[in-house]
């Protein structure tokens, strides 16, 4: 019995860790605010906001939902499964008003994209490796 329980508990713990990876939000220096509330972040992430206060178009960058960070994004920001998020963005993006998020396999690629794209805001798991992008505080925190 122990043979099965221990691996199962290990798997469960792994899974729960992956879904609870700390997420960091970074933003391009053009348009993206220094800090956001969780509610505001969720609103932006759901495509409810098309432009930043300076008029810059909102561009969302996310880790792929199949990655650990992606799964954490699913649970912490969207509270939905990857499929539900995909459907959501399919419905939203096809209308053409708001672009769908851009998904990345690595945090480095994501950070690099955010640095280079005006109005871009990215969510990933891990430390910030570039100084050109600013960390957006969520509810006053670097990570959540």
């Amino acid at each position, binding site marked *: 019995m122990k043979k099965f329980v221990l691996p199962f508990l290990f798997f469960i713990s792994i899974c729960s860790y992956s879904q609870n990876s700390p997420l960091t939000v970074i933003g391009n220096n053009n348009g993206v605010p220094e800090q956001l509330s969780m509610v505001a972040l969720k609103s932006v992430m759901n495509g409810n906001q098309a432009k930043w206060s300076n008029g810059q178009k909102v561009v969302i960058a996310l880790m792929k939902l199949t990655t650990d960070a992606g799964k954490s994004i699913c649970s912490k920001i969207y509270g939905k499964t990857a499929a539900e998020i995909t459907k959501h963005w399919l419905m939203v*993006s096809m209308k053409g008003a708001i672009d769908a998020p851009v998904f990345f396999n690595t945090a480095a690629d994501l950070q690099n994209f955010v640095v280079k794209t005006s109005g871009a805001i990215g969510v990933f798991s891990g430390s910030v490796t570039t100084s050109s992008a600013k960390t957006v505080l969520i509810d006053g925190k670097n990570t959540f």
Partner: protein
Amino acid sequence: MFIGVKTKILLTVLAIVLLFTIFSFYYFPAQQGKTLLTNYKSEVQNQAKTIALGASIALSEQNFKGLKTAMDFVKENEELKFVSLIQKDTVWNDGHTDFSIEENILSSFPENHSHQTDIATNDSIIVMKAPFSTDIMNGEIMLGVSTDSINVRKRKIRFTALLISTAIFLVGMLIGLWLSRNISHPVLALRKAAKRVGEGDLTSEVKSSSKDEIGELAIAFNNMVKDIKKLSDLTLHQEKEKQQLLASQNEALEKQVEERTSELRKSLEKLQSAQAQLVQAEKMASLGELTAGIAHEIQNPLNFVNNFSDLNTELLDELQEELQKGNTEDVQQLIKDLRENETKIVFHGKRADTIVKNMLQHSRSNSSGIKEETDINALVDEYLRLAYHGQRAKNKSFNAILKTDYDESIGKINILSQDIGRVVLNLLTNAFYIVNEKKEMNISQYDPTISVSTKRKDNFVEIRISDNGNGIPEKIVDKIFQPFFTTKPTGQGTGLGLSLSYDIIVKGHGGNLSVNTKEGEGTDFIIQLPYKS
């Protein structure tokens, strides 16, 4: 129903042209339309598949831009009615024992377009679906394209087909007219020429410039007509020669016929003369028979006259002697005897006179050829006696039993008495000849017997003359009435007796002369004379 070559050709060409027209106007556009639709459907399907593939890749990579790009691939299509991304979820029941597929349209372009997920292709729209499957979700791309452009292209094809059909029809009809003109005209010319040839015009010629079978036929026809004309001329020439030959032969034949006719006429005259002589001979033979009978009839009273005359001569001598003696009584007796003898002489003289007068009466009465009332019984009886005495005059030893049976109810009938008498005499003479011949055969207990009878029947009088001679052989009985047929030795018969008798009875009196005979037993000759002739 007569259908000319021209009509047949036109009908044939018309049928072919109509077939082509129908093909080009109906079948060809229909097939083109089908092909067009099939190709278009295939194209739409490929587009749907392309989008589905793009969606599959984009969803796997979570590259929504790629998906949008894939969707944009068809948005520029002017015929696009809609493009939809449909998500398919498997929905299980509470017990997780059964499931259903739930389809949701996640997105559509144009955005305001709404449709059901089960919309199908119809006349106005082509709907194609292409499935995709990713780890995140399964679904399909539904692409709806208008058929307007297809219909426009179909209309163009139909219009083009109409133009082509019209062109085919017109060209076909022109070809048909040309063909009918080029084929039927020479054929009709041939027919016309053939009719003229049939009517006897051998100068007919067909002019045909076509270098084909009809042209060859025209040449062959012309050659044939020339050959027929040659043959006809030759035949006419031969016919003329034949006619001339025939005419000359006819002329020669007519001459020969005339000559032969003349010869025949002469022969006929000779024959008629000979026949007249023969008839005369027969008459003379008959007269001989008659004369013998008459002589015997007259001889008898003459004998009485002569004997009583001789006796009276002797009595006159005795009377003279008795007168000289003065014996008055004897004289008176002798005168008495003389007177009696004289009475007998007168009686027998008158009898002879009566016989002669009767003969003369018969001969005179028939010389005119007019029939007169005659006592047939008396006539027959008279000729019976004449014939019998005639036979006895020729043969003193001849004797025969004569049986007569006359029907007294007959009375007088209208006949040529001399001719009928000659017939009766001829038949009786033959009968006496036959029985005499049989008697000379010394047959024991044979008594020559001749039976003569008359009988009145309903419309005719029958005279039957029978003998008990040897009869007539069966093989010659059919020939006895033929002229010049006789069984008597040469010189004793002319062979005309029965022939003339037949003519007298049948042709002269409208009666009948027949014979019943049995070989070895005897013969019956039956004369039937109409009662009122």
